[in-house]
């Protein structure tokens, strides 16, 4: 068996792993990264990036359909728009391919050695990698587990031809006629909305009494209204039960059984940590409901073994994994670092989009905080009007005593890009006066952030 040794071994080349390896390379650490699939992990191959590509196509197609139906508010018209879905997927795959290559190039530039294969721990410092060309024994001073997560499968709806995960949905080569979705979390709703716009008859089944349970009702209401407009049927408080001859059997909220005819069934009920085949049983790692337990430096219960990203649990977000990866590389290089981020922004690329950074008003109140809340609706924004989409609002929550901004949420078309401003404000420790006192360029949706801060201070100008 070939043997190599290194300072740092990273298992998994998703956003957490590859960023960790690149940063380690920059810091001069002798680094090896192992990936059993394609570089970039879930995010790049079967998550964030391809889903956003599909969502973009769906939005463009929706605009054309509205124009073709003579419903354009501003006089746009067209005839019989069509989507060649094969070309859509080819375009999407090309983006993924470019990014795959990009990650490979970045790793090479950082002088990181990449091994393609399945890693398996022999002990805390030794990992065997089964590659196509044979086994390689890697001895590493430090190991970072960044093996990610995978969609949860329901036992009564095993993934197969008809039942698919988000990965399957993003690999579709044609738009399904009838699509049933189990789980109204952000993944299910993002894809459901896109396929609804692309022409599918979409039905969403959610066990809880509301969609997007991670967000408060004020934020999700515009999304629920839009789903209704798009003809998406949402069954709340309903239990998916089984698959019966092209139909999803559901027990609805009122206890009645119902069959939803579906060509495809998308199951998006959560994600589980990927630890299979890693040989974690050879290590003594504390787990928390299957996820690897870490401390504030991302170190596991074993010295010299770190874990980052989805395998460590919620929030399972690429940007969290990247920040953890960067931090761990610096810790391994001997720098003093600890996880001290104030917020991890989260976005739902639904229609309209939802963005959240920091605490919601309810969460702040639950933390016994006296608060001021300022809400500015996009219906009062000139930019929102000129984009013919006035849905939603920006909402700022701040401490009542010293006006420290605790949280910012927004729902509206294109608000995902505001996440940078929201995150920066919270990370810098901005007060309402800081936000209100910053000139926000006109006309933009971002002005609504400033206005919401002014509103919380009691002197909004445009409402």
């Amino acid at each position: 068996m070939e043997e190599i040794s290194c300072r740092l071994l990273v298992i998994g080349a998703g956003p957490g792993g590859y960023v960790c390896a690149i940063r380690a390379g920059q810091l001069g650490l002798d680094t090896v990264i192992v990936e059993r699939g394609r570089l970039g992990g879930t995010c790049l191959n079967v998550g964030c990036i391809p889903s956003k590509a599909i969502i973009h196509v769906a939005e463009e197609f929706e605009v054309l359909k509205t124009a073709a139906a003579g419903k354009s508010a501003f006089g746009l018209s067209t005839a019989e728009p069509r989507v060649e879905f094969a070309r859509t997927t080819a375009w999407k795959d090309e983006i993924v391919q470019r990014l795959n290559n990009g990650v490979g190039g970045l790793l090479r530039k950082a002088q990181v050695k990449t091994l393609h294969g399945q890693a398996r721990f022999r002990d805390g410092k030794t990992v065997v990698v089964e590659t196509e060309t044979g086994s390689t024994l890697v001895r590493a001073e430090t190991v970072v587990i960044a093996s990610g997560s995978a969609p949860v499968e329901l036992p009564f709806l095993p993934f197969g031809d008809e039942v698919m995960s988000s990965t399957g949905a993003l690999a579709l080569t044609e738009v399904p006629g009838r699509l049933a979705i189990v789980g109204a979390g952000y993944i299910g709703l993002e894809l459901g909305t896109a396929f609804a716009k692309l022409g599918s008859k979409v039905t969403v089944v959610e066990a809880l009494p509301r969609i997007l349970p991670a967000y408060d009702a004020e934020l999700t209401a515009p999304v629920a209204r839009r789903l209704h407009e798009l003809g998406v049927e949402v069954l709340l408080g309903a239990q998916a039960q089984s698959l019966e001859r092209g139909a999803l059997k559901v027990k609805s909220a009122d206890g009645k059984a119902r069959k939803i005819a579906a060509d495809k069934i998308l199951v998006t009920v959560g994600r589980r940590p990927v630890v299979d085949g890693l040989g974690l049983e050879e290590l003594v790692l504390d787990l928390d409901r299957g996820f690897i337990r870490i401390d504030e430096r991302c170190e596991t219960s074993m010295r010299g073994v770190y874990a980052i990203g989805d395998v460590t649990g919620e929030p399972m977000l690429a940007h969290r994994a990247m920040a953890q990866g960067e931090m761990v590389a610096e810790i391994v290089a001997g720098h003093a670092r600890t996880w001290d981020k104030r917020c991890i922004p989260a976005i739902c690329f639904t229609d309209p989009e939802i963005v959240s950074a920091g605490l919601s008003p309810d969460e702040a109140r639950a933390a016994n905080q006296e608060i001021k809340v300022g809400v500015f609706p996009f219906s009062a924004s000139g930019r929102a009007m000129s984009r013919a989409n006035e849905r939603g609002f920006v909402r700022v929550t701040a401490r009542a005593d010293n006006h420290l901004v605790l949280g910012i949420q927004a729902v509206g078309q294109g608000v995902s890009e505001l996440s940078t401003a929201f995150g920066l404000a919270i990370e810098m420790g901005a007060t309402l006066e800081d936000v209100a006192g910053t000139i926000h360029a006109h006309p933009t949706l971002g002005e609504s952030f400033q206005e919401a801060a002014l509103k919380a201070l009691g002197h909004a100008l445009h409402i």
Partner: protein
Amino acid sequence: MGEHVVKLPDVGEGVAEAELVEWHVKVGDIVREDDLLASVMTDKATVEIPSPVEGEIIWTGGEVGDTVAIGSELVRVKTAGGSAESKAPPKAETARAAAPESKPEPAAPQTRAPKPELPMAPRKTAPVAARRAPGERPIASPAVRLAAREAGVDLRQVAGSGPAGRITHEDLEAFLARGPDTPAAAGLTRRTDVTEVKVVGLRRRIAEKMALSKSRIPHITIVEEVDVTALEELRAALNKKAAADRPKLTVLPFLMRAIVRAVAELPALNALFDDDAGIVRQYAGVHIGIATQTPAGLVVPVVKHAEARNLWDCATEVARLAERARDGSASRDDLTGSTITITSLGPLGAIATTPVINHPEVAIVGVNRMAVRPMWDGTAFAPRKMMNLSSSFDHRVIDGWDAAVFVQRLKELLETPALLFVDA
């Protein structure tokens, strides 16, 4: 229109300068003749400077706390009178030259002991630390957090000066320069405000006097216990029989009589040591300074010629001087001329003290608290009223032997008070 220059008048024999302790006027004020302009403090007394003319104040010289030479300009007053007297040279030197023709007879300075209200108003500086409840997460930008991490600083210990208590780079640098504070215990908050009190007037005099005494005089302190049971019985009997016009006797008059007796035998202790000239002047008269706490600070009024005063005389004089010292009406004469000093904190007197000699004297007698203690009389413990004396001596001119003899003599006289009244 004329201008009148008021200069600091001669405020006492041999006084070359005085400290400006209070302004009663400011530029722009209208004063009438005899209105007070300023207070200055000399060796021991505060002197009020009245205005000799009527007019508008157009210039004041010096700030509170400044030392002003006798004869230098204090204020300039714009008067309505003729211009003959209007000479307003800009510099003190020329003012002195111009003084003879421009200065009318200054109004008699009113000499007073230090006023209780001295310009020591505390000035508060703005608190540097914004409040952050215990356990609350510190607010700082990522760059500040990184810098703190690399410097090994836990930001929870750092006070933030920014909005909402945000910790700035400057706060972190200040913390690094200053070092960590002790963390506040649960329920308690750390306070970092600093109050500046300017040391002026009497307080400055005390500070200088104490520094002089302690830096120049090698002190030797002897603590001895005195059985004052008999003295207390005598005192009680005398007070019981005392006529209404006689003051109540404290221990002090007895101690004064004892000192008079003791120094008669040991004249070296009733002396002033002019250490610059290398001369010890032994005084026949016993002028006993009584260290007295006043609202403004420590002053030492002097009972002159204690050797010529009986018990009640001493008591009356001590009471009069204490009263005048406390209400600020003691004269310069009341406050100078002591040759030996008594210091007593009464019930606060503790078990022992290390009194600081009133320079240029050579001895000071400190009275400690009286208490009933069990004393062995040879066969049994008996309750006795005991009181310690803590006395300090200038070891340059007083040997330990002489000091001890003096203390033993005081003890003897106080324990058998009849000796105080017997001509040896």
